[in-house]
């Protein structure tokens, strides 16, 4: 057996694969072979590193050099310079924008500095398609430990003590969920892994499944042991082909090694896992809808109680847990409940993975301890707002989360705090907005999403949200009234109070939170008929500033409706009655002579 002295870790997540990381891996392998170092240097395809903004990522170990935005053609230089001669390729290092300084080690990068990786611990570190690598980082040790050393009762006590709560959005204590399922007697019980990640922009579950599929399988088996379930289902979106593939490979490998299947570790415990594909309906992330979808029924929620722990899949006791929740389980068992409970805030333990997106410098996946302030995530990890613009709001919790203004930035993030300020944890979406975002339009955008994704079962969600959406549309078109605002203020909370499932119960959040924190912006739309952020087309006009216009005719030539008049070298003018507000003139003008307001 040879020991590789150097490992080149290349991100094989969906994002980096889209940027040719597969080709990069092939090129690196070829270069290593050409250099005659095939038995010295190993090229490993790993899961996502999280820093997707700068992908594809290559990490050189043990040197701890972190390359960003690597192209397949860079393989030759990396091998010739770094691998052979030990000289890092400095042009591929990450440049810290605030200090304009090259950083070679990932832990020195602000993006990684404040992160604590539990759920993502193996993502970007091991080859997800090789069970040996998972085993070498203590994989399946936790399963072995619970099966041979713990009773299901003790396991549940441990989970309860750890304080782990559901990472899919609900925040229900995982130990309690397992306990409920374990207490309900039945001939057969099920574990369901909810991998129907649907929040726009959120991809932590996909990353875990792509980067560390075995941890999910192991945790599902552990949950099976705790609850007395013999079978597990993974409900995953069919749009996640890479994750599906890696899960299939992982299940096959685990079955082969006897880590899944009959009599695991020679005990009486047996556990099998089946993959079920979802068609991508957002509402199927709701556990009862998800269960119906697995059963082949229409994916729509049913009233709770009864909870799945009592009557779930095929009417049997079922525990539905989210991917990220599962990814936390093996470390909790190996390191102890106290260790986990020592991380995070008083009521929310451990870490949470957020998908940081929007108008922020460092877009990507970040795992941070609960209790960290939003400001730290956005400004330290995220590197602040793009292009030096002004922060306006952050929308957390996916489409039915709320928008949090500047004043809420120092809120320590946990389930309760986010709910208290009108948003929610959700599955961890985090979209940053700046001064150019219109909050009315943002609310409308999210409402449109929830209206589209509503299953249509209950009245408040089906009709109520539609009415909210229509009202918002009127407002962005300048046809809103103050009465409309009052109606929304009244209807929103009733929808939250009466809707059947979590989707409907949270869908008015974007409207209610923006009305609460950005009331003036609503009033500007309704009373002044203006969109302060300059987004709502119907409320904008384009003007030519006479003192800046030099009469170059560039605007006149691009105007699709020919509503700009003016001779060469004379000041131009826009005929407001005919302008369709397409903005072409604004883009064409090289002298900043055209403004919108």
């Amino acid at each position, binding site marked *: 057996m040879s020991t590789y002295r150097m490992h080149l870790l290349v991100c094989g997540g969906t994002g980096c694969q889209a940027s040719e990381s597969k080709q990069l891996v092939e090129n690196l392998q070829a270069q290593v072979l050409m250099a005659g170092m095939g038995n010295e240097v190993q090229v490993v395809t790993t899961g996502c590193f999280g820093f997707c903004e700068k992908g594809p990522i290559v990490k050189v170990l043990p040197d701890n050099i972190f390359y960003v935005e690597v192209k397949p053609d860079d393989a030759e230089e990396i091998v010739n310079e770094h691998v052979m001669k030990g000289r890092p390729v400095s042009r591929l290092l990450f440049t810290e924008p605030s200090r304009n300084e090259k950083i070679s080690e990932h832990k020195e990068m602000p993006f990684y500095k404040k992160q604590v990786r539990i759920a993502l611990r193996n993502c970007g570190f091991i080859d997800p398609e090789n069970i040996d690598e998972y085993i070498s980082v203590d994989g399946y040790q936790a399963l072995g430990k619970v099966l041979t050393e713990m009773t299901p009762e003790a396991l549940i006590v441990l989970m309860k003590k750890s304080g782990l709560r559901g990472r899919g959005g609900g925040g229900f204590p995982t130990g309690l969920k397992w306990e409920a399922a374990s207490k309900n007697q039945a001939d057969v019980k099920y574990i369901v892994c909810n991998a129907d990640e649907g929040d726009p922009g959120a991809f932590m579950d996909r990353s875990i499944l792509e980067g560390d599929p075995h941890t999910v399988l192991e945790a599902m088996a552990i949950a099976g042991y705790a609850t007395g379930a013999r079978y597990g289902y993974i409900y995953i979106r069919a749009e996640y082909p890479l994750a599906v593939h890696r899960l299939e490979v992982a299940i096959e490998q685990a079955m082969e090694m006897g880590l899944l299947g009959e009599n695991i570790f020679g005990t009486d415990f047996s556990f099998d896992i089946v993959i079920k594909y979802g068609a991508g309906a957002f509402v199927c992330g709701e556990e009862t809808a998800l269960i119906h979808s697995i059963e082949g029924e*229409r994916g729509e929620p049913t*009233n709770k109680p009864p909870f799945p722990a009592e009557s779930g899949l095929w009417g049997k006791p079922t525990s539905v847990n989210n991917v990220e929740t599962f990814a936390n389980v093996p470390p909790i068992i190996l390191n102890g409940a106290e260790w986990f409970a020592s991380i995070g805030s008083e009521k929310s333990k451990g870490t949470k993975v957020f998908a940081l997106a929007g108008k922020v410098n460092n877009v990507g996946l970040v795992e941070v301890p609960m209790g960290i302030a939003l400001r730290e995530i956005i400004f330290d990890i995220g590197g602040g707002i793009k292009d030096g613009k002004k922060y306006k709001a952050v929308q957390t919790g996916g489409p039915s989360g709320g928008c949090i203004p500047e004043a809420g930035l120092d809120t320590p993030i946990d389930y309760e705090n986010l709910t208290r300020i009108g948003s929610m944890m959700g599955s961890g979406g985090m979209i940053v907005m700046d001064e150019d975002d219109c909050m009315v339009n943002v609310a409308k955008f999210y409402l449109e999403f929830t209206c589209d994704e509503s299953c249509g*079962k*209950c*009245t408040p969600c*089906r009709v*109520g949200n539609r009415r909210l959406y229509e009202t918002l549309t009127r407002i962005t078109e300048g046809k809103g009234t103050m009465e409309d605002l009052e109606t929304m203020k009244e209807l929103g909370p009733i929808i939250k*109070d*009466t809707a059947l499932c979590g989707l409907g119960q949270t869908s008015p959040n974007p409207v209610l939170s923006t009305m609460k924190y950005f009331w003036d912006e609503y009033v500007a739309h309704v009373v002044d008929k203006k969109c302060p952020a300059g987004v709502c087309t119907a409320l904008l006009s384009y003007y030519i500033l006479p003192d800046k216009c030099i009469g170059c005719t560039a605007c006149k030539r691009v105007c699709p409706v020919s509503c700009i008049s003016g001779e060469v070298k004379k000041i131009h003018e826009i005929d407001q009655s005919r302008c369709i507000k397409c903005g072409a003139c604004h883009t064409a003008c090289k002298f900043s002579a055209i403004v919108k307001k």
Partner: protein
Amino acid sequence: MRLVTIHINDKELTVPDHYTILEAAKEANVNIPTLCHMDLGDLKAVNQVASCRVCMVEVAGRRNLAPSCATKITDGMVIRTNTPRAVKARRTSVELLLSDHPFECLICEKNQKCDLQKLAADLGVRGQLKYQGSMSTYEKDVSSKSIYRNLDKCILCRRCETMCNEVQTCGILSAVGRGFETVISPAFSLPMSETMCTFCGQCVAVCPTAALTEISCIREVWDVINDPEKFVVVQTAPAVRVALGEEFGMEPGTIVTGKMTSALRMMGFDRVFDTDFGADLTIIEEASEFVHRLQHGGRLPILTSCCPAWVKFFEHQFQDLLDIPSTCKSPHEMFGAVAKTYYAKKYNIDPAKMVVVSVMPCLAKKYESARPELTGEGVSNVDYVVTTRELGMMIRESGINFVDLEDSQFDNPLGESTGASVIFGATGGVIEAALRTAYEWLTGETLEQVEFHALRGLDGIREATVKVGDLEVKIGVAHGLGNARKLLEAIRSGEANYHAIEIMACPGGCVGGGGQPYHHGDSEIIKKRTEAIYREDAGKQKRKSHENEQVMTLYKEFLGEFYGDKAHELLHTHYTAREKI
């Protein structure tokens, strides 16, 4: 059963722990309005989807409001049904539904019979609606002869879906699409006529609004009545006479046979006859067929074929068993065939000018009357089928004071009937009637005790073994197509062994038919109709079909032998294997 103590509006009460809040409230005499909820009790049809969000109540310690119809009580639960929060939420749900509902109550099929209309009135929704916006617009489905679909009026209560999928196991109607565009529809938005729908009409029977109603032929019937060229004959099914009174506010279960015949005459029908005559005729033929199969080693069990929804069901679903149902036409079709041949000839009426109108508790009968094989020489046995509800509407339209009408008799000769034919209206009745005749034919003895109580009742599947001479006749009864499916599957697999089986598509039999006055979810009404059916039977002097003298005269003068050639030509039919999509 465990008892738990709860508080509803400060009132303490002890109820079984399997109760929902709604059931407990009923016990406490607290009224919680509902819309989508439905529980047909012994008929075992429950819609508990909690989709409308009208029955919302406050439960102490709960973050949001609870739907009382689908929330089980727990020990010590503190419930408040009438807080401003709950009342407002309830009202908002109704207002939101109304904001997507056509405002045409005055000219609506369900005017004054609409649950949504009543709810809006009860909750005091008046004047302008608080919420307004886009409204659903769907193409109206008039493709079938039976069911009119106007989804603009659908409130997504899903009751029809429960009936169609869970009770009847037909799977025609289900929710399609998402969000505001969700609509209840057959697969691929097919029109009803192209689906496996049996037209049992149970979806119509439970629809709270006018999203699902019957395809009405009231106008056409008035036209033929008013056409001096036409000789219009009307016949009424057994289940109509025990339900029609409800259309006029009479107590459910009131028998209004005499008033009904008076009203039909006043409306201008040329002859008022009784489908019961056809039912007695059906028994003669069906009992003959049964005896024939028994004695000649024919295939058993024999299945009744009176119910057109059931016939269409097995044509789609049990194509391999098409040879076991009786080949007998249904009673009103037999009646039509006899009226246009025997009666027309006897009274010298041109059959082409004769119009037969059936008053039926049923929507499938509308479809049935248009089946090509049930028309002779280009003329349908039956030309028009109106439901009990439509008849009620026509009587009101005629300005007849129904409640105070004097009784009158059916016309003869096609108006005579026995108790055996009356019980066709309730589940188990056809087979009981057949047994009364078959018993006497097989044993040659007089049957003294004509009531077979083992065949009665509302259990979905019932069976009884009746000693007929030396033979132990094993009989099965099923009502509701879901139960029928179970029975048929047991026959197919060889698990079940019966001599004869009666199947009715509608829960309760014809008394619970899709054309009956709306029961608005009260299954007690159906029970009372059933009791009335058996009362009517008990009050008859003749209770066996073969004692019907006019039927016997019909054979003597026209048909010849029982189950003979002429009878086959006019009174029997065949079945067609139909697509399964």
